[in-house]
């Protein structure tokens, strides 16, 4: 493929590789996670590692970090003769913080937890943590003693990133660092990464968001099925479509295809499915039949909380909720589900999956709760049908959800809820950590439900996604609707602009 044209690329001729992964093979049981992967990172560059879910990115990171041992091949660090674990800092996708410990201790564990001579060096930890946090403009340097458990998701991610900065490693690997962050936070992060790269640190960033990666990285390596398919490709020489094609190994319908209904197809009914009224501002947010309504906010958590409020799990004392035109009282998930509402969260591990129960149990649990029967009947066949309907790739319904890729796990959660035939979908960042293929499938299925007279309320931290799928986008701050975009006025740029206006207004 285009591999050949890309290999000529390199950073400045003076730089030398600080990290080289050579032909690494790694098997887990019968499956080959890595099949001769290569990665060369030079000092002072920002290097993107791209790949669909299941491509082997996490395994690769584990091997570089030294938590996994390769079956063959090797990892060479040429920076100095330090061991792998200490000269590479990894910012994990799965938050790896210590919730009860303070921000300072989490940012700078090498001082707080390891210190010197068995004595914890709290003061040094605080100073170094403050420096790292300040460079991210996070505002967290003023709350160094606060336990991390009390922070919202985006701030936690910043703590984790700050830990990477504070580690002082010559190589820093960031695994999907931007997903919970808003655009301002991303800007500060990127600025910090550029500063670090200028200081000679090798920055490796793993991300799904191609256009975002492009803003910060200069070089990309694409991995597919445990193999490197594009090695050190200069990002300016490839388009996003070409990269996406390499990632999934065949041409997709244009990655940025719009899943919005065109004006002619739009059949927005008059039926009001959902209405959230914000008392203080007397503004409300509606979902009518036939539309996908996006909800965006500068702090991603705001949008998410509104969706969770409609599901009966988040506060919102200043809000009033109407479902199918009827005011609700003491709204709970159970009542919501019985009324024909479904909720899909992108935080699968926390909100949706029962890791110790098999796929059948996972798929059938919503039905058991919503349409309880005295005994379990035809569960296996129902589960198989629901999963087939949604094209979930699994060997057996008696497997545990851990055996599925992120994309398939998420499709399974969708399958479980859509099988109940609910008409109102509450989607809480539903494609987080899901590969391009699964995303497209999910977009299509949601559109199908909506076309049949349903409606969806969709929160996402990914504005690109909102621009792709939504018929209307509502920007909120706190729980208050600020502005609304409709139809072709919705572009990634317009959403971002509106969000930022909302902040200054």
């Amino acid at each position, binding site marked *: 493929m285009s591999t050949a044209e890309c290999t000529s690329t390199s950073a400045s001729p003076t730089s030398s590789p600080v990290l080289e992964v050579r032909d690494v093979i790694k098997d887990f049981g019968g499956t080959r996670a890595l099949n001769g992967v290569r990665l060369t990172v030079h000092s002072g560059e920002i290097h993107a590692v791209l790949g669909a879910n299941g491509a082997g990115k996490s395994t690769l990171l584990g091997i570089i970090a030294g*938590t996994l041992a390769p079956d063959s091949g090797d990892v060479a660090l040429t*920076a*100095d003769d*330090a061991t792998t*674990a*200490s*000269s590479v800092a990894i910012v*994990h996708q799965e938050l*790896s*913080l*210590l*919730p*009860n*410990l303070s921000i300072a*201790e989490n940012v700078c*564990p*090498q001082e*707080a*937890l*390891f*210190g010197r001579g*068995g*004595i*914890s060096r*709290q*003061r040094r930890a*605080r*100073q*170094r*943590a*403050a*420096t*790292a946090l*300040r*460079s991210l403009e996070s505002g967290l*340097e*003023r709350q*160094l*003693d606060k336990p991390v*458990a*009390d922070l919202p998701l985006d701030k936690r991610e910043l703590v984790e990133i700050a830990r990477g*900065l*504070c*580690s*002082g*490693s*010559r190589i820093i690997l960031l695994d999907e660092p931007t997903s919970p962050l808003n655009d301002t936070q991303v800007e500060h992060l990127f600025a*910090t990464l550029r*500063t*670090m790269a200028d*200081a*000679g*640190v090798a920055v490796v960033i793993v991300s799904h968001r191609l256009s975002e990666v492009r803003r910060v990285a200069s070089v990309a390596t694409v991995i597919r099925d445990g193999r490197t398919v594009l090695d050190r490709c200069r990002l300016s020489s490839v388009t996003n479509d070409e990269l996406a094609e390499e990632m999934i190994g065949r041409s997709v319908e244009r990655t940025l295809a719009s899943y919005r209904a065109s004006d002619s197809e739009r059949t927005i009914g008059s039926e009001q499915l959902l209405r959230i009224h914000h008392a203080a501002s007397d503004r409300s947010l509606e979902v009518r039949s036939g539309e996908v309504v996006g909800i965006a906010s500068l702090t991603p958590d705001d949008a998410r909380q509104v969706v969770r409020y409609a599901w009966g799990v988040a*506060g919102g004392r200043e809000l009033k909720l109407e479902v199918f035109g009827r005011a609700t009282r003491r709204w709970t998930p159970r009542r919501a589900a019985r009324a024909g509402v479904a909720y899909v969260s992108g935080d699968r591990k926390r909100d949706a999956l029962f890791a110790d129960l098999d796929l059948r149990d996972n798929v059938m649990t919503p039905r058991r709760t919503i349409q309880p029967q005295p005994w379990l009947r035809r569960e296996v066949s129902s589960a198989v049908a629901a999963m087939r309907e949604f094209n979930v790739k699994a060997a057996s319904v008696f497997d545990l959800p851990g055996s599925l890729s992120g994309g398939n796990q998420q499709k399974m959660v969708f399958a479980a809820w859509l099988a109940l035939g609910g008409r109102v979908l509450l989607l809480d960042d539903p494609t987080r950590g899901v590969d391009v293929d699964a995303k497209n499938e999910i977009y299509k299925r949601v559109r199908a439900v909506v076309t049949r007279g349903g409606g969806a309320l969709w929160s996402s931290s990914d504005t690109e996604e909102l621009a792709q799928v939504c018929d209307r986008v509502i920007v909120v701050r706190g729980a208050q609707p600020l502005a609304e975009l409709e139809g072709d006025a919705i572009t990634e740029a317009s959403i971002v602009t509106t969000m930022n206006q909302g902040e200054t207004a």
Partner: protein
Amino acid sequence: MTGQPTRGAVDEVGSAIGTADRSADRPDSGAIGTRPPLAVRVLRRYRVEVVIAVAIVLIELLLGAFKSVALTNGNLTNIAQAAAPLIILAYAQLLVMVTGGIDLSVGSTFSLAGVATAAALPHHGVVGAVLIGLGVGAATGCFNGFCVGVLGIAPFIATLITFSVNASLAFVVAGGNSKPVLSHTFVSIQQGHIGTVANYVVYVIALLLLIEFVFLRLTFGRWLFAVGSNEEAARLLGVPSRTVKLAAYTLCGVLSAFAAILSIAYLQDAEVTAGNGLELEAIAAVVIGGASLSGGVGSAFGAFVGALLVTVIQNGVDLLGINSFYNGTVTGAVILVAVLLERVSRGSDGTRVRRLRDIVLRRLRAT
């Protein structure tokens, strides 16, 4: 120390960031890294503990108003003597609970170490007997720590094993009867004085300060909290979590045995069933003191006031002439109140309780 990053690399990029920051030239850049004043920090850190301490004083004053005996020197000494072993058991339990574990065996270790020490006293002298007692505790704790840390058995189950084994071994060692403690030297371990302060008070306070120091200043203490907070993340950071747990359970066993030694020196008698139910009282004390059963939260000061509160309440029930069968009921009520208080004062996971508080406050304001 495993996983400690090489210092050279650390300093290098630390300074790289520092440079970027200095160019930003912030006037407040020095102030942010410094800590708030000591008093503020202490109050902030020990909020729950201070509330409990105040509650203890109030309860005592209230008791004194009804029964003048309550505030006499004699009664307060009684409380202190009775509380000392429980406080030390609470310290023991705390060490394990901050790692996210639980030790059900502290009560029966207490019984076994007590009778073993008393049985060894006539044959091995005071030092020998004490060493044997502490050895029993260390061995038990080591076994627990091995099961939990190395074999990965759930703490509840691992310590259920030693709970059961030690309770029965106590009967084996004592031959079914209690063992008298006749050595004056041994009794003076508990009864003696350093200056004007009784030994048992010294032990309790010294251990309090020592444990707080370890918790807050030593890397080992921070490891206990790190493991209890998120074991996987701690391991990824290079914390030797197995060793940490092994050490926590071992120290827990040693402290349990030490509590038993104090107790038999006080009572001058080693009962086979002396520790029955004490594991639960110790857990109660630690929980009242603000520790979390899921780990990562807790302080020695909290364990101290928690155990003291439990003892003070038992003493109060006694003084008021209430049937001592009600002890447990009152303790239960105290645990409930303490846990609710704690949830109100904490932010994130107390939503429901806070809502209740808000409603109450609004009603109060309305009237």
